[in-house]
Structure formats: structure tokens, C-alpha cells
């Protein structure tokens, strides 16, 4: 299953762990200038450390280890507190050679000097052509470096309870205007029925919607980060959802991935779900009784270009301090482009590949029984190709997300609007960057 869900949501363990984190703060050491990484192969046998959060990854690595006796890889699952573990290891100088990092956390870790540029290895730069375009611009930070290789993505689509739409004679929407109209019709037909839910505590999801709308949250010019979290395009999305919330046409009391959310779907109170590729197994596994009732169609669009968004997904980053860059690149390339590896990751971990080769996997071109044997992955593959490649995350994304969530929750409770929430997130972005001594200004 996707790291996103587990990362965002719940866990007594996570709470307990965070209590522990409170006790021990760490310092950032003044680091020496990163010297250009060299890419010489090691003599003799090498052991690499690879930390990740993907279920079943140990089995994928076992396959590699069997085939490559000279480059052995050891894995460690860090899904409990992924970035806390990584951050602490970095500060202690004990980071692994390779680690799983979400796209939205890449700039943050880079400002902590967590990565090594692998572009000295020709195999790393050559991998560019093998990945869905937007993923590469994120791992290279829109430049020439190679700091990570893309692993999986979360292209978004619309999950629809076709039986409910049919029952009330509502056409499946293709644009956001149609979606709002459908929301009204469904709610009118059954006052206990809503078209979807808006989880104010899920900034990652909302960011996916912003991405789709052609918003740019950040830019860089004049030696400063340009913060445009509250841009006109973003406000358009915020105003749209504010209307649905104010009109009581969407539920706002359900946390994504919670038991409560599944219960609401189970009780036929919600007719659609705006989700990512990795979400297909959530419904299949948690709502077995609704087999055959769901269909997956492209996300409703804003304009005629049919742009889509991404929610979640991860990369495998080259971590600073690795002494075996050549071998790391070799393993990382295999892990994320080899059809056999990708098939296994998809089967065991539910990963939706970032590599083009992965999109042609047999498992991803078959019909899926739960979804009426529809070829749902064709929808996600098409979505994947329509994701804005120039979208970039900020270096303090986690703080910005928290501020956005807090303010979105207020809006959902009738205190302020989602537009205000964007303004709060914009302010938090500027403040947090200032705190980290990252030069930033409010962009247009």
C-alpha cells in the first residue's frame, strides 16, 4: 500500500514515537562544502544500506542479492517515523546509501544537505528517458543534477459509484462545473448522500488538486524562493471547494483512510472519491461488498487541456555520505526500471511505477475484478502523462501543510474560508523559510 496513507494517518505507535521525539532535539552540524561525487566502482564486495517504507521490499531486494553477489543490499523498514528516522541518522552521520523520500520532502531534505548528486555516474543521467517526465523534474530539481530516482507516483482520477449515479440519473461529470452540479443533484435526491468528502487535515490531497489546476506553489528567481502558495489559480480551487463546503454539499467530518471514512462509504453516504492510483486497493480491500459498484474515470478538469494532478509517490534518494555511489546507482536503476523488480513491487507493495516500463506491466494492463474487470490502470497511465512537469515543492513543505490544514479545518467549521487558508499557508511558508535562513519572498 502507499506510503502516503500510512504516513499521513494514525498509529498509536506514531503518537508514542512523537512523544519520544519531543525529548530529544538535534542540532544541524555545519557541513563542509560537498565535493563533486566521483563514480568509481569499488574493488571487491560492497554492502549497501537501503531504508524504505514499502511492504515486501525485502523480497525485491532478496531477488537482487541473489543475482548480484558483489553488491549486497540490506534493507530497513522505517515506515514508523520515516523522516524523523532519516533526519536523526543524517545528523548523526549515519545515513544509509539510499533512502525512500516522498517528492514533497525532496527540497526539504536537500536544504539539509541530505543528498549527493549522482550525475557523475552516466548510468544515473541516462535513466532520465525511462521515467514519466514530471517525476524526473522533481528528482533533478528542474536542473541537471540527479539526487534521487523516481519510484512510484500517485496520478489522480475520479472513483465513481456508478450505481448511485445511475439510480438518480446523474451523468458522470467530466469537468469541475459538472461535478458541482452533480453534487447538488445527488444531495437533492437524497439528503443523506454527498458526492464526496473534503478532509481538512489532508493538505497532500489538496495540493494534488492545486497541482492539477496549473498552480505553482514556488518558484526561484533573484536569489530567492518565490512563494506563490496563494496564487490566483490556487484561489480558484479554494473558492470552488469553499462553495461546496458552504452549500453543505460535501462532508467535512471524515479523515482520509479512517474507519469512519470507510463506514460512510459502506453506508452509501458518499458517491465518489477523488483519489490516486494507489487508492484502488484501499477500496478493494476495505469495502469488499461494494465490488462491481465502482468505476474509475479521469479527474474532472478545469480547462480543455485535461491536466491531471499527482497525490503521493516516492523516490529513492542518493544519500550524502555514501561511499559506493557507482553501486548505489546500479542498484537504484535496477530497482526502479527493471520490469521484474517493478512487477514485484507492484504485487507486494502496491506501488504504481514511475518508470514508463512499469506502466506496461502485465498486471497493469489487465482488467481488475473489483472494478467490473475494467482496465482502470489505463486511466491512471493517461492521467500520469497529463501531469504538469514544472510543478515544484517548497523546502518547508511539512510546516506549510500543517498551517494549511489548521486553517482549512477552521474554514470547514465555518471560521474563515479556504482562500484564507491559502493565505495562512503562504504566511507560514515565508515565516518557516525565514526561520531556516532560506531566502524567500512573496511571489506574484
Amino acid at each position: 500500500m502507499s506510503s502516503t496513507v500510512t504516513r499521513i494517518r494514525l498509529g498509536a505507535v506514531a503518537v508514542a514515537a512523537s512523544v519520544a521525539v519531543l525529548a530529544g532535539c538535534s542540532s544541524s552540524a555545519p557541513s563542509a562544502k560537498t565535493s563533486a561525487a566521483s563514480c568509481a566502482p569499488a574493488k571487491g564486495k560492497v554492502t549497501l544500506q537501503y531504508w524504505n517504507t514499502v511492504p515486501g521490499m525485502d523480497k525485491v531486494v532478496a531477488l537482487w542479492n541473489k543475482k548480484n553477489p558483489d553488491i549486497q543490499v540490506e534493507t530497513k523498514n522505517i515506515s514508523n517515523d520515516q523522516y524523523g528516522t532519516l533526519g536523526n541518522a543524517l545528523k548523526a552521520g549515519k545515513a544509509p546509501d539510499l533512502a525512500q523520500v516522498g517528492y514533497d520532502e525532496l527540497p526539504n531534505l536537500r536544504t539539509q544537505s541530505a543528498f549527493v548528486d549522482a550525475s557523475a555516474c552516466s548510468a544515473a543521467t541516462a535513466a532520465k528517458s525511462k521515467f514519466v517526465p514530471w517525476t524526473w523534474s522533481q528528482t533533478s530539481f528542474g536542473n541537471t543534477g540527479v539526487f534521487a530516482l523516481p519510484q512510484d507516483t500517485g496520478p489522480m482520477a475520479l472513483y465513481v459509484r456508478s450505481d448511485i449515479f445511475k439510480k438518480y440519473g446523474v451523468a458522470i461529470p467530466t469537468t469541475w462545473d459538472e461535478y458541482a452540479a452533480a453534487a447538488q443533484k445527488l444531495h437533492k435526491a437524497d439528503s443523506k448522500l454527498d458526492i464526496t468528502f473534503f478532509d481538512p487535515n489532508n493538505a497532500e490531497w489538496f495540493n494534488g488538486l492545486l497541482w492539477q489546476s496549473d498552480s505553482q506553489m514556488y518558484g526561484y528567481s533573484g536569489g530567492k524562493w518565490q512563494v506563490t502558495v496563494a496564487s490566483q489559480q490556487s484561489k480558484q480551487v479554494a473558492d470552488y471547494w469553499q462553495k461546496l463546503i458552504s452549500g453543505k454539499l460535501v462532508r467535512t467530518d471524515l479523515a482520509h483512510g479512517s474507519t469512519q471514512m470507510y463506514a460512510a462509504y459502506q453506508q452509501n453516504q458518499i458517491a465518489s472519491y477523488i483519489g490516486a492510483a494507489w487508492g484502488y486497493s484501499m477500496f478493494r480491500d476495505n469495502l469488499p461488498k461494494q465490488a462491481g459498484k465502482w468505476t474509475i474515470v479521469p479527474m474532472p478538469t478545469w480547462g480543455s487541456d485535461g491536466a491531471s494532478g499527482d497525490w503521493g509517490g516516492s523516490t529513492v534518494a542518493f544519500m550524502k555520505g555514501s561511499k559506493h555511489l557507482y553501486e548505489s546507482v546500479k542498484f537504484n536503476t535496477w530497482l526502479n526500471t527493471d520490469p521484474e523488480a517493478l512487477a514485484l513491487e507492484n504485487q507486494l507493495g502496491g506501488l504504481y511505477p514511475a518508470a514508463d516500463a512499469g506502466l506496461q506491466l502485465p498486471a497493469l494492463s489487465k482488467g481488475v475484478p473489483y472494478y467490473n474487470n475494467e482496465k482502470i490502470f489505463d486511466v491512471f497511465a493517461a492521467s500520469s502523462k497529463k501531469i504538469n512537469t514544472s510543478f515544484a515543492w517548497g523546502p518547508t513543505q511539512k510546516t506549510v501543510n500543517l498551517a494549511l490544514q489548521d486553517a482549512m479545518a477552521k474554514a470547514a467549521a465555518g471560521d474563515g474560508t479556504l482562500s484564507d487558508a491559502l493565505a495562512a499557508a503562504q504566511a507560514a511558508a515565508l515565516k518557516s523559510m525565514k526561520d531556516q535562513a532560506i531566502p524567500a519572498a512573496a511571489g506574484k
Partner: protein
Amino acid sequence: MTDIATRATRVVRSPGGRRRLNGGGPRAGTIFAFVIPFFLPFVLFYLVPVGYALWQSVRVVRRTGGQYGTSYTTFGGFEQYGKVFQNDEFWSSIGRIGLFGIVQVPVMLFVALVIALLLDTPLLRLKSAFRIAAFMPYAVPGVIAAIMWSYLYSPQLSPVVDLLNDIGLKPDFLGPGAVLWSAANISTWLWTGYNMLIMFSALQSIPQELYEAAKLDGASNWAIAWRIKVPIIAPSIVLTTVFSIIGTLQLYAEPAVLRQISSNISSTFTPNMLAYAVASGNNYQQAAAISVVIAVITFVLSFGFMRLTSKRAGL
């Protein structure tokens, strides 16, 4: 072993022992041996982290230029503290738990006192069963308790909410106005038994003769409870109040768990949650300053309360 034991006994018995200990070689060694199991962890896991937090709180991050310039920390004086005092989120979280404490602590301690007094009367049967039942919630880890209650609060899953809906009440335990009190309810459920037990053990140590004398003077059970028992166990009540003040200022687990199902708990709901949110954004220095300020406020409040009540409580 016996050697140490007899020597220790001698130390206790000899009247001038204390003074002589300072110079005594073998005796100092013995004391050291006894103290070390406490002292070493105390230094390692208490003093060192506190010192480290203090040190972090006077550091600031600076950076060499560029979009992804390298960062380093340097001495920043009270810059981080200035930011804490200017942080509206911090003060509203303090205000929130202030309100929480003013209501929750007296309610909880009153209930605990009443249960302790009931358990102490000769009227009640099955005393030990009641005592265990009242104490039981304390045995449940806080996070587990919060998860359990979050199911009872949830409109989708809770039989309690269903029942209340059926009789026409429409409770929203997770709504903006109610969620603070839902968290308070969890704390009360968790800690009442613990506080009750402290008060109850104090009651147990009151000599029975006092009651007999009071009875002879014609005091009712009611009068004995309020005029004799409560004043005598006042030090325990003060103690539990101080514990509760500290606990309130450190509130974290209950709201953090409820946050998973209610968006009406923000990431900065309590001071500790704020410190955690700031730390998760890599701003360890600011988080350290927040932690130090929370510690100082806790110290002032709990010792202030002790001073205020010490004379009356006979501490």
C-alpha cells in the same frame, strides 16, 4: 552485603553520623554505590537532555547562499525566546489548556476525593473490588484510552452517539466547541483513579481513635468526612493538584489521537503539540525554546500553587 547492611544501620543509629560521613572514605563509597543507580540515569536522561534543550534554544540557523545553501547553527542569544513570546499560536495553546485545567482539574479531583471518602466509610461493601474498578483506567495506556474513546465519540461508529441520536439529541463530540471537553473527559477517566488512590492511602493512615473521639463528641459521618478527613489529607490533595497541573501543561496524547478523527484539533492545539509540529519542520531550536518556556511555566505554576497552599495544608 551484610557488611554494608550493618554499616548502614550504624550510620542511621549514630547521632553524629551525618557529619562524620563527609570525611569517611569507605562510607562515602557505600553511599555512592547506593546512589549511582538513580544518579546515572538521572544525569543521562534528565539533566543532559534538559541542558541540551537549553543550549539548542539559544542557537539559530544560518545558511550559505543559493537556493539550496548549506546550513549551520550559531549563537543567537534570546532570539528564539523572542519568537516564542510573539507566537500567537503558542499563547492560544496556553490559553486553551488553561481553560482545560481550570475546569478539568477541580472536577477530576473532586470526583477522586468523593470516591476515596466513599471507599473509606464502613458502609460500603466489596471495597477492594470498587477500589480496583476505580483504579483500572489508570492501567490503560493513555494512547490506547484515547483511541478507545475516539471510537465512542465517532458519529459513524459509536453506539453511544447512535443511542443519543435515537432519543433526539444530536451530540457532536468532535465539533469545534466540544472537542476540548471530549479530550478533558478522556483525561478525567484516565487519572481519577490514580488520584483517588493517593487520597485513599492518606485516609488509611489516619488513626481510628480520631474517629472514635469525634463520634463520642457526636459528629456525624458527614462531619467526620469534611471536618476531619479532608483537612488531614489536604497535603495529598495539594500533591495531586500539582501533578494535575503538570499533566495538563504537558497534554499531548489525548488530543493527538483525537486529531486523527477530528479536524477541529489543530496541529498547535496544546503547547507540546506546537513544539512537536515546530520540531517536525526541522526548527529544533525554536522547539527547544518552546519546551523551555513550557517547563518554566509549569515550574512557576506548580511551585506557586504549593507555596500558596502550603501553610493551610500543613506542608
